[in-house]
């Protein structure tokens, strides 16, 4: 079957000639009609539509957006905050960047709709520090929307008021984790909070109920209001609704961003047809399907999965539909939508050394297993790559990685151990053979660590 056509909802205007990030252009394209419509609806009705839509979070965990909203403590009497996660720091992920830079009003309109639905009076966009222009574009867009009475006091004469502020991070990956982000927004080190009790929906920003959603997740909300939750749920596949942006990087002919109905395109179609296949003379070897924290897939491996009726089916990696549930059933995850492709020129020890250096650099250091474990995994793989590999290194790595997950405050613990565990599980022979492989000439390979 040929790959289906892209279905651009969130990225409808990205890279469209003549489309500019200013309010006038957005209004010419029908902008802020969803906000007008939403203000005529009861907030609870909007939350209901979002629930019916089946929308799941695009930031990493794929948690139901409507469910997240329904967990918010609305009885505390404290203000409710909305925090937009625009940290976009998961390696391999580069989608929120284009929304922010090219279509900021789509995000602002969705923030206003979501804020109205959740009785939020103050929303913050937490944007990574490395997007200086993105922050300025958003600030300018907020000022324009404010001047047009679309943000701020008494929005469109409705009596409802809500402010949006932009808050810049400063280069730390852990600020993407929602409770680390909240600490950072409070002006502190971004040390993730322990859950329970600090679930953002109850004890978030300033110990008030707080919703944290990813940029792409929120952008869907305005479209859900446009078409209704039930219609929206027809896009994609059951339980995996809507479109999502797949970011492809690494060894393919046409890396880039592609928006597809969730689960309607397979990994093989995406890489071979959409991205043009491997580089000349190469073959695919390994794929990380959902940002660098997701477990690696070996090209050509097969999975035996359970069907609903109890029977089983066998699926090759290239036939995996790019949805949340199948990727999870195959032992990995859709995560942030960042698909990193490695071809046969790559040695997996070197690729892992690169990934381990990232996690060792980014661990916040609160939990001993994560702080020490990520550092040791980095040291071992770095030593291997730099000429001192030992036959027992694979086992050593395994021992360190297995002592992290489940013993830490935040999911970074899993994120940093999954690469090592999955690389060893799928490519263990390369770790054992590395001492000799290192000395064999591989002219086509580039340094990775």
């Amino acid at each position, binding site marked *: 079957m040929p790959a289906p056509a892209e279905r651009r909802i969130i990225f409808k205007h990205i890279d469209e000639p003549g489309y500019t990030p200013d309010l006038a252009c957005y209004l010419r394209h029908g902008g802020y009609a969803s906000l007008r419509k939403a203000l005529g609806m009861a907030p609870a009705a909007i939350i209901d539509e979002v629930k019916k839509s089946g929308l799941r979070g695009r930031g990493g965990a794929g948690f139901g957006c409507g469910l997240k909203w329904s967990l918010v403590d609305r009885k505390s009497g404290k203000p409710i905050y909305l925090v937009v996660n625009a940290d976009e720091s*998961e390696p*391999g992920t580069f989608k*929120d960047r284009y929304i922010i830079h090219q279509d900021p009003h789509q995000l602002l309109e969705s923030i206003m709709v979501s804020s109205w639905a959740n009785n939020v009076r103050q929303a913050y966009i937490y944007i990574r520090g490395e997007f200086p222009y993105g922050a300025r574009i958003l600030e300018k867009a907020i000022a324009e929307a404010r001047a047009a009475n679309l943000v701020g006091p008494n929005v469109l004469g409705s009596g409802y008021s809500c402010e949006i502020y932009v808050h*810049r991070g400063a*280069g730390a990956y852990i600020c993407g984790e929602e409770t680390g982000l909240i600490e950072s927004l409070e*002006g502190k080190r971004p040390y993730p909070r322990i859950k329970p009790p600090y679930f953002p929906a109850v004890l978030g920003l300033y110990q008030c109920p707080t919703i944290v959603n990813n940029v792409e997740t929120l952008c869907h909300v305005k479209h859900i209001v446009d078409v209704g939750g039930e219609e929206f749920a027809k896009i994609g596949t059951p339980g995996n609704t809507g479109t999502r942006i797949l970011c492809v990087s690494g060894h393919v002919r046409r*890396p880039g961003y592609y928006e597809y109905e969730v689960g309607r395109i397979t990994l093989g179609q995406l890489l071979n047809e959409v991205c043009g296949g491997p580089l000349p003379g190469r073959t695919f070897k390994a794929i990380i399907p959902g940002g660098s924290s997701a477990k690696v897939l070996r090209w050509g491996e097969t999975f035996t999965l359970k069907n609903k009726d109890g029977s089983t089916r066998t699926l090759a990696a290239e036939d995996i539909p790019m949805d949340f549930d199948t990727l999870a059933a195959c032992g990995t995850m859709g995560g942030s939508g960042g698909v990193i492709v490695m071809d046969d020129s790559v040695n997996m020890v070197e690729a892992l050394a690169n990934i381990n250096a990232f996690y060792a650099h980014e661990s916040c250091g609160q939990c001993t297993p994560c702080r020490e474990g990520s550092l040791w995994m980095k040291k071992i793989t770095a030593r291997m790559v730099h000429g001192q590999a030992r036959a027992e290194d694979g086992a050593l790595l395994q021992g360190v990685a297995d002592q992290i997950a489940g013993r830490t405050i935040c999911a970074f613990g899993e994120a940093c151990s999954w690469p090592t565990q999955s690389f060893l599980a799928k490519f263990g022979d390369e770790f054992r053979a590395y001492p000799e492989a290192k000395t064999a000439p591989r002219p086509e390979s580039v340094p990775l660590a």
Partner: protein
Amino acid sequence: MNLKPETLQRIEEVIPHYPVARSAVLPLLHLIQEDAGFISAEATEWVAARLDLQPINVLEVVTFYPMFRQQPIGRRLIKVCRTLSCALRGGYQTCAAFEQEFKVRRGGVSADGEVTIEFVECLASCGTAPVVMIDDDLHENVDCARARELSARIRAEAAARR
């Protein structure tokens, strides 16, 4: 503290964005670093006093976040992405090309004080790897040849300034 009037004005504008003044630590540090180039001990104390915090509350933030620095750096900052997608497309070689052009190892300042080269983690532009940020500007698909072009441009801009 010798801050520009517009920096002081923007500082006063940003503090009321938050119900709790401490939240303004990061925005204030960004504004001061943009103005002064780095965060001095004096700046740390100034921010603490302005937000009614202890200096350690600000210092612990300055020392955690990679983008804040406590020393001056070169006039231009070249950040080369080190992470996997860029590395697969030659990011380490791109970094080496910049190092050769300016005869300085990453982490250091070139002898003429013109550039600092840094390796940084994923810049969220992995589809156009390898990528580099020079000051606020992102440059995409920066192979070694492109790195040399960008270096020549930096040198030309430096010469024009003299």
